[in-house]
């Protein structure tokens, strides 16, 4: 077993070197058609338009979820459902949109791919972190319904920020789940979507080429992300005009949403990497490129066992680092909620107006909750870790009267019960950070609230402990 791993590692190292020196594929681009007897006129085998369409369906859905007016709004609900489960033509891309100095090439979902939705690709398993024993699809449907009648996405009575919950959970239950539990998992098997056949009749890409492309599309990185600086990548996602020239790779004066934009977990990878301690965006994209090169190099032949083993090793790099990106985000927001809870408590004790502090607190909790649930959609059994994570974070943040959501009744209303204090809940957030850092080898560790303890412990050293006076 160890020998096989060693050979795989050597093979990967050799392949990586070869890729760098010989073919020098630094972008996720220019992979030729390898399908045998291809009759069409395409010269590139790359295709992941459906995934990018889902990326913009997600960003548009999030945008819509912020527009409620606090009352029942069937029109908004129908609109949100159109982006989640509809397949209608003519849906506009609501986010991202062109801005002055940052013009986008596409404004309709159909320009990327037609007839796509999110619901069909959402995780079907039960979500333990959300009340009501709902599946991934049902949780999103529930959140969308609540968001439609929320006040600009917020439900202050129950401590919910729906845009955050929808977005962060959807990124996991759709993109992460599809990529790591489907395309980079069972679809890499020998007899599934083989490389010696087109993905479907007449396609310019083989089964394995398209499977790999689809996973890349769900990651949400621009084609040049392997060599992109994290801060630049972050600026692209934010639509900063200063970065336009760098982002516009083909120089057509517009940002192509399928090749030049950053979405979802690629954006959060860049967010973590900005601190300079991690390199998730580059590492994941590089593994995608190397894996794609391996498939292309097979020249439309069936992948050998050794090639599939190497491809699985690239997939493992992607899956491991992708999981870390989500864990890093959860770690960061647990730190934010910790600080927010303490500030909120201080504000309450001083009889101050805490509306803004409370909004910030539930906003960060929404991010934390979304990411923590997303972490559990990768098809792995996280066992006791997941149980502890869900218990510590709760079904809602601790509210001002020291209550917390504990369930949902038959009509879909939240049930609250008395719970711990804000101070104790803050401590829970430290435990969340500890739990995450014990489980994952986190590198960025943004908002690390226990960093001072470990930094001082390291500074004091161990020198004197065995000296005898």
């Amino acid at each position, binding site marked *: 077993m160890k020998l096989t791993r060693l050979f795989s590692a050597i093979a990967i190292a050799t392949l990586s070197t070869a890729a760098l020196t010989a073919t020098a594929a630094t972008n996720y681009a220019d992979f030729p058609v390898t399908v045998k007897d291809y009759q069409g006129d395409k010269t590139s085998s790359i295709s992941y338009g459906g995934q990018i369409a889902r990326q913009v369906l997600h960003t548009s859905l999030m945008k819509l979820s912020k527009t409620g007016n606090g009352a029942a709004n069937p029109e908004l609900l129908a609109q949100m459902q159109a982006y989640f489960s509809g397949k209608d033509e003519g849906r506009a891309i609501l986010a991202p949109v062109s801005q002055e100095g940052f013009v986008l090439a596409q404004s309709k979902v159909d320009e990327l791919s037609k007839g796509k939705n999110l619901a069909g690709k959402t995780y079907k398993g039960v979500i333990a972190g959300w009340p009501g024993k709902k599946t991934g699809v049902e949780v999103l449907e529930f959140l969308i319904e609540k968001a439609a009648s929320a006040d600009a996405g917020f439900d202050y009575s129950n401590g919910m920020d729906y845009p955050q919950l929808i977005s962060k959970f959807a990124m996991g239950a759709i993109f992460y789940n599809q990529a790591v539990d489907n395309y980079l998992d069972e679809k890499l098997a020998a007899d599934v979507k083989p490389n010696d056949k087109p993905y479907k009749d007449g396609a310019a890409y083989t089964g394995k080429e398209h499977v790999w492309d689809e996973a890349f599309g769900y990651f949400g990185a621009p084609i040049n992300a392997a060599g992109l600086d994290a801060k630049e990548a972050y600026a692209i996602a934010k639509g900063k005009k200063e970065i336009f020239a760098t982002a516009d790779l083909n120089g057509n004066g517009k940002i192509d949403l399928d090749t030049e934009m950053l979405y979802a977990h690629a954006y959060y990878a860049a967010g973590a990497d900005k601190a300079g301690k991690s390199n998730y965006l580059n590492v994941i994209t590089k593994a995608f490129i190397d894996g794609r090169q391996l498939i292309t190099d097979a020249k439309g032949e069936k992948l050998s066992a050794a090639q599939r083993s190497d491809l699985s090793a690239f997939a493992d790099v992607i899956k491991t680092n992708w999981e870390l990106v989500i864990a890093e985000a959860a770690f960061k927001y647990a730190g934010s909620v910790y600080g927010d809870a*303490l500030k909120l408590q201080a504000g309450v004790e001083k009889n101050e107006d805490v509306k803004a502090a409370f909004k910030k607190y539930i906003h960060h909790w929404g991010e934390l909750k979304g990411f923590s649930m997303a972490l559990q959609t990768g098809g792995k059994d996280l066992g006791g870790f997941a149980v502890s994570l869900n218990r510590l974070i709760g079904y809602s943040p601790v509210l001002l009267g020291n209550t917390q959501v504990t369930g949902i009744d038959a009509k879909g209303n939240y049930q609250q019960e008395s719970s711990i204090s804000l101070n104790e809940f803050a401590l829970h957030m430290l435990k969340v950070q500890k739990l995450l850092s014990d489980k994952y080898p986190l590198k960025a560790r943004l908002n690390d609230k226990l960093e001072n303890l470990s930094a001082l412990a390291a500074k004091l050293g161990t*020198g004197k*402990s065995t000296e005898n006076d």
Partner: protein
Amino acid sequence: MEQFLTQYWNDISALFSNSQQRLFWGYLLSASFIAALFSLKTRTGTLKTTVKTALGLPHWLSKSARADYQLILINKAIYLLFNPFLLGKLTVATLIFETMHLSLGHRNIETELPEWLIVMGFTLFIFIFDDFARFYTHKIMHEIPWLWEFHKTHHSATSLTPLTVLRTHPVEGMLFAIRSALVQGISIGIFVFCFDDKVDLFTVLNVNIILFMFNLAGANLRHSHISIHYYPWLEKILISPAQHHIHHSTAPRHFDKNYGAILAVWDRLFNTLHLSEAGTTIQYGIARDQKEGEQSLRALYLSAFANSFKILKSRLYKYRLFARKIKIKDVNKNTNHL
């Protein structure tokens, strides 16, 4: 195994290359310099004799010193194996931090105190707390009979060299590691809870500045044949090398004196302070009459276990007797009532 050996070698070389260690080459150099100055200033014979005496080659080659070297080498391997299982300072710090969080009910980390004051406070607090913990542990190692059996390994040194500082029974070494974890963990936990990221340590070469000064000022001479003493008033504040030599003395009047590591104030508080005695020649060890095989590894490692076991066994026996007497008394009382 290879990893173990690499770590072992790193730990051994760190003894002399890491400025957090007493035997860091810089401190040894400064101690040698101080020893040379002191020897020249107080010399009575020729320069050659003075240099010869100051170098103290017979001390370095003595049976006792050779036992020190063996103990150091063996102990390092033992610590490497067992220390990961001991209580860590980060565990203690986290526990203290969380307990304070829960029991105090709030955490107000906004303070108007200047940062330098907090750093100075932490540096001073941890130094004083650690020095007291070292004093008190040392005291109980002497006063509790079964613990003394382990501490005797250190006191059985009949020649003192700077390396004697590491002549420790591994059980005692592990107790010291736990003591350090508690002291440092408690200090870190309290200060980080109260002052968050404002807490830091004033350091020189990665060492608490106060400890650095202590080490630079000839701390290594505490275990040496160079008996430097301070002014009497200063010896009531700081323990001089000569005072520590008294602590190692075989003279009964010196027994259980000068437990302090750096500060003498703890000994003053507990009435165990003994000022240095100019002109007194001190014999080091446990008793004037040295036993055959006293410096053997068997005696240094195993005797402590055997003797402390005997003591604990006899204690248990006495306790049982006592318990039985009480029981009999109770029965008699009850019978009388009938």
